[in-house]
């Protein structure tokens, strides 16, 4: 589950198709938007950066004694290259992994691209811009915002997967369980992602600050400012975010299992099994029965959906505006 290269058949066909259409639309539009950055035919640059992301995903870093993790890089790519080029580059990586390395299902490409490229790049970039407002205008502010946004971008991707599971589950595992487990696990993975991404951006800022898209608004003096003043802000911000997520997640992770079982029995899966063939999914089976569970499920789904859409939308909007202003400058 860590790298989220879902195989074929993990979600029902209709959801896979809808995801594929959305992914093609966003990446296709992105190719046009990114043309302002790729317009002087800097395709070799994008290709070599894609190779870098692929390579970065291959190398493990230690997490705790013995266990290791690896970078996902969606948010890092967006901060370094901008959300449009970043999402395209990571989408190419996902495509190559499926087509050439048989890693990730071909019919799962739609939701794999959404979860690994689009949501981390645009959602993560939106969070990055948000955090930048609270951090000082300095190199350390950018590093702090990168760390927090990258950490949360992994959680966003997990939430996006849970949402897709809600609509197209291939097995009657309730949304609450999947959401709790996915978001909980990825909160831990996010810590490593944030740590590595933040320090990596710090290293790029030290040698080639002009290569960091997300720090393009800083002048020379601000870029040289690496005072650890923001460390306190960073710790407080990080702690607050963690507490917020912990509170939200624990709500669903420790949900009463008896209630869920009762709903499942009430519903009677033998009757609904036939409908499953073309996938109405768990959403139809669960959220329409059992009042308590319905309220929770729908509330979580609604809130997650609204938050995800708002973040991805905000990232799209800002990416659009910045791409436009860049063309205007040229």
């Amino acid at each position, binding site marked *: 589950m860590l790298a989220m290269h879902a195989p074929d058949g993990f979600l029902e066909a209709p959801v896979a198709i809808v995801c594929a259409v959305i992914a093609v639309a966003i990446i296709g539009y992105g190719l046009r938007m990114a043309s302002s950055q790729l317009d002087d*035919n800097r395709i070799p640059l994008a290709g070599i950066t894609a190779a870098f992301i692929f390579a970065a995903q291959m190398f493990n870093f230690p997490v705790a004694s013995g266990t290791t993790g690896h970078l996902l890089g969606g948010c890092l790519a967006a901060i370094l290259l901008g959300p449009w080029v970043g999402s395209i580059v990571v989408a190419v990586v996902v495509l190559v992994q499926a087509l050439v390395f048989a890693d990730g299902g071909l019919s799962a490409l739609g939701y794999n691209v959404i979860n690994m490229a689009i949501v981390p790049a645009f959602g993560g970039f939106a969070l990055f811009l948000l955090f930048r407002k609270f951090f000082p205008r300095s190199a350390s502010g950018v590093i702090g915002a990168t760390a927090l946004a990258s950490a949360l971008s992994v959680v966003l991707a997990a939430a996006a997967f849970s949402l897709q599971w809600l609509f197209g589950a291939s097995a009657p595992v309730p949304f609450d369980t999947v959401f709790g487990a996915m978001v909980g696990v990825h909160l831990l993975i996010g810590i490593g992602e944030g740590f590595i991404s933040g320090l990596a951006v710090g290293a790029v800022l030290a040698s080639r600050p002009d290569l960091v898209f997300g720090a393009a608004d800083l002048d020379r003096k601000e870029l040289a400012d690496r005072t650890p003043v923001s460390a306190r802000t960073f710790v407080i911000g990080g702690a607050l975010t963690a507490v917020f997520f912990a509170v939200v997640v624990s709500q669903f992770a420790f949900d009463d299992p008896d209630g869920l079982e009762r709903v499942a029995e009430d519903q009677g899966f033998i009757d609904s099994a036939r409908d499953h063939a073309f996938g109405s999914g768990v959403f139809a089976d669960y959220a329409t029965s059992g009042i308590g569970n319905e309220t929770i499920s729908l509330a979580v789904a609604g809130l997650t959906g609204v938050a995800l859409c708002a973040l991805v939308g905000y990232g799209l909007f800002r990416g659009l505006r910045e791409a436009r202003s860049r063309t205007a400058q040229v």
Partner: protein
Amino acid sequence: MSSGHHHNLFIPGSTVVHRLAPEVKLVAVFAFVIAVAVTPRRSIGSFAVDAAVVVVLFALARLGPRTVLSRLAVVVPFVSFAVLIPFIAGGPETEVLGVSVSTEGLWGTWNILAKAVLGTSASIILTSTTPVAEILKGLSRLRAPAIIVAIMSFMFRYLDLIVDEMRRMRIAMTARAHDPRWLWQAKPIATGAGAMFVRSYERGERVHQAMQSRGFTGTMPRLDTRSASMREWCAAAIAPIVAIISLIAGFALT
């Protein structure tokens, strides 16, 4: 999960499967995988037919069971999740080996297992019999966006180089007694990744300038215009057509 498989999966050969035009193979594999993905979980017969198709193709492409099994390992993390499903899913329960598990959950496990293994097998047939350059050619003949294909081809050209450079960096760090056990000791790895990004980007800039000075206008020249023959299309269509027929039969029977 995606670690350690950067080696080219292509196995040279001259079998029928190897010789098919890449665009034909791409379309056939996609069609087959989609047919498998929409097959209802209860039509076990359809899955058996699909499995037979895959096994025949493995034999035709001369792919041994050891190669296939080691390459199927990429699905293991998801399969481990699938195995958990009967225990956490709801619904009527069945006794399996004295343990009571969810019936619908068992079907869920079966569904994910069957589709993941069949879909990955189809991808393995494609990747083991088609060189990367051919896959890219196939994509461009199928009119995939030129920018995407170009980015993919540059990615491939420089992938091994960058992976090797990263590996050398890690060896140099290990040689200097860097042996991190905990995340907070991993700072050199992170800054190394940042340095690698700068190096990769600067290499990209140099490559781009070198290409421009040699007359690069933004599009790569197309070197071949061979297109697949009707016979190739017909031959490759067999596998997905069998899968689609078994899918329709599966719908009719369930």
